[in-house]
C-alpha cells in the first residue's frame, strides 16, 4: 500500500516537473494603452495571472492539453480564446474592447446646469438653494447666482442671456407650470410658488435644451420632484411672518407615501416694524395648502400626484409719477390651484415610459385707483386720459390642462432613443373695466397646442456623444406650425474635462396679453449656438461657455391709439456673450464657494422699441460670489452672497403721431447687493433627540445699498421716478422644527 502511494506521488511529482508551461503576454485596449488589473485565467484551473501596470503578465501552469483562456476586466468586453498547453512557452497579445458605460461616458453639458442630490454633476442641491444667502429658499433667486441670469429685481422671472422673463419656462416632472410665480405686482419681484425641498433635482438650462421642451426662447428650469420620502415626519415652521405645519407619512412597506401641509404668511407685523416705501393698506398675506400621494409600482416605476392651493391678497399705495400729491392704489387677490400627476414605468426590453398630466387654474382680481392725499378716489377730466387709464379693474383667468407622454428605448450599449407627444389646452380670459370711461371689455381665447418630438442619444465611444432631436409644434390660436431641430455634441478631452457644442431652434407663442388683441401672428423664434468647456472633479467645477443667439419674428407693437395696439412679427435681435463659473468645495476645509461671471452683448427691436436697442433687463457685466461655511464646533453655518451688475439702460418711449418716439434714455447706476444668512442646528450629532430644529436668520442687502432698477416717466416726460425695492433691507428669522426624521442631518451631510 505504502509503495503504491509512493509511486503515485513520484508520478505526480514527475508530471509536475516535466509539464510546466510558461504563459506570458500583454493586455492592451484597442488604442494600444496597457490595461492594468486584467485577469488572465485558464478556465477550470487555479492557474492564471493578473496584468501589471504595463499590461504585462506571466505565469506557469502544470495543466496539459487543450484549454480555454479567459481574459476579463471590469469595463471591458471579456475575451476567451483556445490555448494548447504542451510545455513550450506561449506568448500572447490580447486586445480588450472598452464597454460603453454610463458612468464613464461623456455627458452633454452645453447650456445646462444640472443640480440635484442624486447626480454627481450636482451644481446646486435643495439645501444649496436654502443656504444661499439672499435667496430665502426661493429657487429662482438662487439660480440668479449662476451665470447667464440677470440680477433683475423689479420683476419676477429668470432673464437669461438677453431674453425677457417670459422666455424662461418651468417644468415639474416634465409638464409645464403655467404660473410658477405669485402674480406680478408692478415694480416688485414676486417669489416662486414652489419650495426647493419638494425637488430632488433641478436642471437650469440657459440654452440649447432638449427637443422634449418647447415654447421657451431662452431657458428652461426642469424640476424633478422627490419620489418616496425617507421617513415619516411632522414639520413645523414658526417665524414672525410665517407659520406652517405639515406631515409626510411613509408606509411601513415603503411602497407608498402621502403628505399634506399648510402655511400662512402675513407680513403685517414685519411691515409695521420695518418701514416700507409703499403704504400697504392691505397687508400681503398668503395661504398655501398642499397634498401629495406617491406610490411605487411593481416594476420599480413611480406614480406621483401633487396638488397645491394658494390664495393671496395685498393692497399698496405708491406715489403717482404724474402728480406729486396723488397716489396710485394697487390691489390684488389671487387664487391658484395646481395639479400634477406623473407616472414613470419601466417596461420590458429596455423601454421606459413617462406619462404626465397637469391641470392648473389661476384667477387674478386686480385693480388700480388714483387717490388724493386723503386716500380718496380722484377723478379727472376726459382730456387727462393718461390719468384716467391709471384707474382700472382687471379680472383674469388662466387655465391649462395638459398631457405628455415620452417613451424611451435603450439601444445597444448606452445609446437610446426617445419620442413622445404633448398636448395642452389653454383657456385664458381677461375682463378689463375702466370706471373713468365706463368701458367693460372681455377678451378671451382657447388654444390647442400639440407637439411631437423625437430625440436620440448616440454614444459613438465613451468619449464622443451626440444628441439629435426634432420637435414639431402646432398652435390653433395662431394656426401656425413649426419644426425645431436640436443638435448637441460632446467630446471628452480628459478624465474630468470635456467640450460640448449645441445648436437649436426654439419657438414660442406670443404672450396672452398680445393674443387677446391679435391672433394673426406667428411663433417668435430664437436660434442658439453654444460652445462649452467644462472641467469637473468631485469638489471643483470650472466651466466656460460662449454663445450666440439670434432672435427672429419677435413681436412688434403697432399702436392704434394711446391704449389700443395690434401686433406683428417684424421684430428681431441678437444676444452674444460668454460666462465663467467656478465652484470649489475642496481648497478650504468646510468652506464652499462659487463665483460666476456673465458678459452679455444684446440688442433687440421688439414691442415699442424705436430701433435695435439693449433691453432694459440686460446688464453688460454680471457677477456673483456665494460663500458658505459650517462650523461643527458651534453647530452653525454662515453664508454670504455678493452680487454685482453694471447699470441697465432705461428709456422713455412715447406715442407721437401713431408712432413710437424715444424722448429720453439713460443708464442706471451699478447694482450691488451683499446678503448674509446663518443657521444654527442645535440637534446636530444628538442622535437621541426627538425634536430636531434649525434656527435660521438672514439679512438681504446688509450694506443698505440704494438699488435703482429703472425709471417711470411722467406723461410729460419731465419727471422720472426711480424704481426701487420696497425696502432697502429684508430681514428674516425663523425656526424649522421636525419630528421623526432628522432634517438637521441634511445640514451636516452638506458640510461633511
Amino acid at each position, binding site marked *: 500500500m505504502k509503495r503504491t502511494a509512493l509511486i503515485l506521488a513520484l508520478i505526480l511529482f514527475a508530471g509536475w516537473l516535466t509539464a510546466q508551461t510558461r504563459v506570458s503576454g500583454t493586455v492592451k485596449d484597442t488604442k494600444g494603452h496597457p490595461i492594468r488589473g486584467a*485577469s488572465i*485565467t485558464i478556465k*477550470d484551473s487555479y492557474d492564471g495571472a*493578473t496584468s501589471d*501596470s504595463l499590461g504585462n503578465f506571466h505565469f506557469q501552469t502544470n495543466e496539459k492539453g487543450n484549454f480555454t483562456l479567459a481574459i476579463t476586466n471590469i469595463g471591458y468586453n471579456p475575451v476567451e480564446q483556445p490555448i494548447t498547453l504542451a510545455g513550450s512557452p506561449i506568448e500572447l497579445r490580447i486586445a480588450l474592447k472598452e464597454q460603453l458605460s454610463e458612468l464613464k461616458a461623456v455627458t452633454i453639458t452645453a447650456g445646462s446646469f444640472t443640480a440635484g*442630490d442624486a447626480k454627481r454633476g450636482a451644481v446646486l442641491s435643495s439645501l444649496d438653494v436654502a443656504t444661499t444667502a439672499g435667496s430665502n429658499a426661493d429657487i429662482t433667486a438662487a439660480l440668479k447666482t449662476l451665470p447667464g441670469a440677470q440680477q433683475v429685481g423689479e420683476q419676477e422671472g429668470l432673464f437669461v442671456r438677453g431674453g425677457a422673463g417670459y422666455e424662461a419656462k418651468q417644468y415639474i416632472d416634465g409638464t409645464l407650470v403655467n404660473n410658477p410665480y405669485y402674480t406680478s405686482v408692478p415694480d416688485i419681484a414676486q417669489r416662486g410658488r414652489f419650495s426647493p425641498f419638494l425637488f430632488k433635482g433641478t436642471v437650469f438650462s440657459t440654452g440649447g435644451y432638449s427637443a422634449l421642451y418647447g415654447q421657451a426662447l431662452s431657458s428652461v428650469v426642469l424640476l424633478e420632484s422627490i419620489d418616496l420620502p*425617507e421617513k415619516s415626519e411632522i414639520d413645523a415652521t414658526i417665524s414672525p411672518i410665517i407659520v406652517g405645519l405639515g406631515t409626510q407619512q411613509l408606509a411601513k412597506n415603503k411602497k407608498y407615501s402621502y403628505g399634506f401641509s399648510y402655511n400662512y404668511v402675513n407680513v403685517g407685523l414685519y411691515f409695521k416694524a420695518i418701514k416700507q416705501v409703499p403704504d400697504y393698506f392691505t397687508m400681503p398675506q398668503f395661504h398655501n395648502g398642499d397634498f401629495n400621494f406617491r406610490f411605487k409600482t411593481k416594476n420599480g416605476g413611480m406614480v406621483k400626484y401633487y396638488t397645491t392651493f394658494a390664495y393671496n391678497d395685498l393692497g399698496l399705495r405708491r406715489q403717482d409719477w404724474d402728480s406729486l400729491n396723488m397716489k396710485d392704489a394697487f390691489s390684488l387677490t389671487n387664487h391658484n390651484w395646481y395639479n400634477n400627476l406623473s407616472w414613470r414605468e419601466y417596461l420590458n426590453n429596455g423601454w421606459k415610459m413617462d406619462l404626465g398630466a397637469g391641470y392648473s387654474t389661476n384667477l387674478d382680481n386686480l385693480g388700480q385707483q388714483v387717490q388724493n392725499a386723503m386716500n380718496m378716489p380722484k377723478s379727472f377730466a376726459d382730456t387727462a386720459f393718461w390719468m384716467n387709464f391709471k384707474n382700472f379693474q382687471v379680472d383674469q383667468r388662466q387655465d391649462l390642462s395638459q398631457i405628455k407622454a415620452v417613451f424611451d428605448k435603450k439601444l445597444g450599449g448606452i445609446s437610446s432613443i426617445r419620442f413622445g407627444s404633448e398636448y395642452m389646452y389653454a383657456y385664458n380670459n381677461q375682463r378689463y373695466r375702466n370706471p373713468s370711461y365706463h368701458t367693460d371689455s372681455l377678451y378671451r381665447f382657447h388654444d390647442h397646442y400639440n407637439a411631437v418630438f423625437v430625440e436620440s442619444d448616440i454614444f459613438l465611444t465613451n468619449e464622443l456623444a451626440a444628441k439629435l432631436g426634432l420637435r414639431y409644434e402646432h398652435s390653433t390660436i395662431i394656426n401656425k406650425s413649426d419644426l425645431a431641430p436640436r443638435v448637441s455634441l460632446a467630446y471628452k478631452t480628459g478624465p474630468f474635462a470635456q467640450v460640448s457644442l449645441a445648436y437649436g431652434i426654439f419657438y414660442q407663442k406670443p404672450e396672452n396679453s398680445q393674443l387677446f388683441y391679435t391672433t394673426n401672428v406667428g411663433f417668435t423664434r430664437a436660434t442658439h449656438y453654444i460652445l462649452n468647456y467644462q472641467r469637473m472633479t468631485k469638489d471643483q467645477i470650472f466651466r466656460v461657455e460662449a454663445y450666440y443667439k439670434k432672435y427672429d419674428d419677435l413681436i412688434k407693437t403697432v399702436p392704434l391709439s394711446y391704449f389700443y395696439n395690434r401686433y406683428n412679427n417684424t421684430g428681431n435681435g441678437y444676444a452674444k456673450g460668454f460666462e465663467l463659473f467656478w465652484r470649489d468645495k475642496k481648497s478650504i476645509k468646510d468652506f464652499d464657494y462659487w463665483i460666476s461671471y456673465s458678459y452679455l452683448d444684446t440688442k433687440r427691436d421688439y414691442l415699442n422699441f424705436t430701433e435695435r436697442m439693449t433691453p432694459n433687463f440686460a446688464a453688460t457685466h454680471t457677477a456673483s460670489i456665494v460663500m458658505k461655511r459650517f462650523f461643527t464646533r458651534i453647530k452653525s453655518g454662515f453664508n454670504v452672497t455678493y452680487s454685482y451688475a453694471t447699470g441697465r439702460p432705461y428709456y422713455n418711449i412715447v406715442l407721437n403721431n401713431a408712432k413710437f418716439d424715444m424722448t429720453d434714455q439713460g443708464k442706471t447706476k451699478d447694482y450691488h447687493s451683499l446678503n448674509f444668512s446663518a443657521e444654527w442646528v442645535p440637534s446636530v450629532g444628538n442622535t437621541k433627540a426627538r425634536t430636531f430644529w434649525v434656527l435660521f436668520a438672514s439679512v438681504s442687502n446688509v450694506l443698505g445699498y440704494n438699488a435703482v432698477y429703472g425709471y417711470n416717466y411722467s406723461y410729460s416726460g419731465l419727471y422720472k421716478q426711480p424704481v426701487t425695492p420696497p425696502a432697502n433691507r429684508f430681514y428674516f428669522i425663523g425656526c424649522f422644527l421636525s419630528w421623526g426624521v432628522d432634517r438637521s442631518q441634511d445640514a451636516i451631510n452638506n458640510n461633511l
Partner: protein
Amino acid sequence: MQKTLFALALLFTLTASAQTDKYAQVMQKNIALLDSAKSIDELQSLAGTFERIGDAEKTKWLPYYYAALAQTWIGWNPATKDKDANSQKINAYLAKAEALEKNAELYAVENMSATQQMLVDPQSRFMTYGKTAADALQKGMQTDPNNPRLYYLQAMSVFGTPPQFGGGKDKAKPLFEKSIALFKSAQPKPLYPTWGQKQAEDMLAQCQ
C-alpha cells in the same frame, strides 16, 4: 476481496484528501501573501488568483471572499483614483461569494466597499452609499453578533465622525475594546479570516 475494497477505499480517501489539501495549501499560501502584500499590483494579482481558485472550486465562498478583500485593500490605497470602478470589482466578487453563502464576513467587506464609494463625495452620497454601508453592518451583526471585524468597522465609522455629530474617540473607544475582546475569544476555522485585531489595537491606542 475485503482487502481490495479496503485498499480502494483508502486510495479514494487519499486522492480526495490530496485534492482538498491542494486547495488548503494554495489558499494558505495566498492568504499569507495577502497578509504581507503592499503594492496595488501585488494585491490585484492576489485578487485574480483567489478568483481563479473560486472559479475552479465552484462551491467555496472563501476564495471569492479573499478576492473581494484584496480588492478592498486596493480601494483603501489613496493611489486608487477610481473608487467606483474598484468597488464594482469588489461587489462582483461579493456577488459570487454570496451566491454560495451569505455571512457576516461578506457583510463586513460590503460595508467597506460602500464606505469607499461614499467617501468619494460624502455630501451627495451619504444618503445612498452611507446607508448601504450602515445596512451591511446591521445585517452582518444580525447574522453574527460576535464578529470582531464588524465591531472594528463600526468603531472606525464612529471614530471618523466628528464629536458634534455623535462620533469621536470617546464613543469609538468602547467599540474598539469590544472588538478586541471578541478577537481574543474568537476561534476561527482553518482558512477563515483573522485580520483586524492589530488594526483595532492600533486604533484603540489612538483613542487613549
